[in-house]
């Protein structure tokens, strides 16, 4: 199995969720993160003091999938998360050795 991890713009979550739904992928875990990359931050001024804000809000989506679904999921995310503007994010794919569904104890693809 694979774990597909995508860093995306927060405003794209809903599209990505729907794109994955139409692939019949109905599970994912989302984390609020801050990203640093080519996309420049901004500066904020409070009273006299200026703060450079380098990190921008992003969402991290993690989806565990069966090996054969991995490419389709990556493609679906790439298409649904893309705005074409800098800062759209990355997709990372990892090998996932083992999965267990806590409720039932099922393992492997059956646990997804």
């Amino acid at each position, binding site marked *: 199995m694979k774990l597909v991890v995508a860093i995306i713009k927060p405003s794209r979550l809903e599209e990505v969720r729907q794109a994955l739904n139409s692939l019949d992928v109905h599970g994912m875990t989302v984390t609020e993160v801050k990203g640093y990359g080519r996309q420049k931050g901004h500066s*904020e*001024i*409070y*009273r*006299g*003091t200026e*703060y450079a804000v380098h990190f921008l809000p992003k969402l991290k989506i993690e989806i565990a999938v069966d090996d054969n679904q991995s490419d389709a999921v990556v493609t679906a995310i790439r298409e649904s998360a893309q705005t074409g503007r800098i800062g759209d994010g990355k997709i990372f794919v990892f090998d996932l050795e083992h999965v267990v569904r806590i409720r039932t104890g099922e393992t492997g693809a059956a646990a997804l």
Partner: protein
Amino acid sequence: MTVNKTSTFLGTAALASLLAALPALAQATAAATAAAAPAATPALTVNKGDTAWMLVSTILVILMTIPGLALFYGGLVRSKNMLSVLMQVFAGFCMIALLWVAYGYSLAFGGPTDGSGISAFIGDFSKLFLNGVTPDSISATFSKGVGIPELTFVIFQLTFGAITPALIIGAVAERMKFGAVMLFLAIWFTFSYLPIAHMVWASGGFLFSKGALDFAGGTVVHINAGVAGLVAAIVLGPRVGFLKEPMAPHNLTFTMIGACLLWVGWFGFNAGSNLEANGLTAQALLNTITATAAAALAWATAEKFIRGHASALGAASGAVAGLVAITPAAGYAGNLGAIVLGAVAGLVCLWAVVTLKPRFKYDDSLDVFGVHGIGGMVGALGTAIVAAPSLGGFGPLTDGAYSIGSHFVTQLTAVVIAVVWSAVVAFVALMIVKAVMGLRVTESAENDGLDLSTHGERAYN
């Protein structure tokens, strides 16, 4: 930490002699005119409308302090220090309230009203624990023959005595020991707030007699606290990470609520200082609206030009600057004077915060000096101008005339005395506290945040 007992004693001695030496300056000609200070003139009539208004004004100034000031300051610190700020303001208010009843009122407003001897600089101990002040005692107001229950004067002035030290807390936020804050405020209240309040507001007080104009406390409250804040910020040194890591305000919503409650409570502060409910009270209230509005817009507009953004924090800071500046002038300024004074204060305080502070690199965490100190000076000096009847003001006439120049000199004198006095007292007080218990928390406590390290709790879970 080395506890240096000798320096403590020296410090205490210095404070004592400061108080003792100054009467020499007293003018023999100190006027014995009717004063805000209570005097049991038999012919005073009490009107329940005035009494109701003074009760309300007292409550408003408390609202201004807790939660107003506490929130205004608290929102500006990092979340790990939120409760420490709220607690310092809250406990400081409680402590001063008790000290006020114990000896504060007596030292500020007790004693002879002829300005003889030391009485030009400080009251006496005749009213310790409000000795002799009963529900039937009456204080004079500014209008002939009109009195208010002395207890309303006691509680109204209590709130002034309590908010002034609390203002200083903004300058030392995020790094000072809780006990040290309390002790410092107690000493400073005793040796700086009380004598200056006496000098400016008590019948026979040194500056009162000279004709210094301070309707609601520009000098007594704001310059006094602002200067003490500056001294404390410098003596303490900057917060760990100052100018290196971001220390953005953790919750500007709380700061905005605080600013609004400061404004609302300030109506009690400024309009209540008229001690009566009449047309002049309404004028003072109106001035407290318009000067503030002008200052807020001036600050925000200037920011827009300088930085490209008119910020909410800028508008709130400008509002406070305007409130500070109109305080001494509240019942003296006319409509246009108030607006102009407010706008000027907004711009000058913006400069103090954006240009002056960075130049000297002191860490006045929440800009107590930049807003209250500088704003207080703008107000105190500006009062001499806007009070002029020729400019629509309501300043007192001397021999039928109002001289801006001579009033300006008097105001300047009062400012200089307050600056020096407060600075000296604050410095000595800090040395004493440092010797007794040390001033700052440890660096690791500062990193963890005072909420956890000092108070054993966190604001948000």
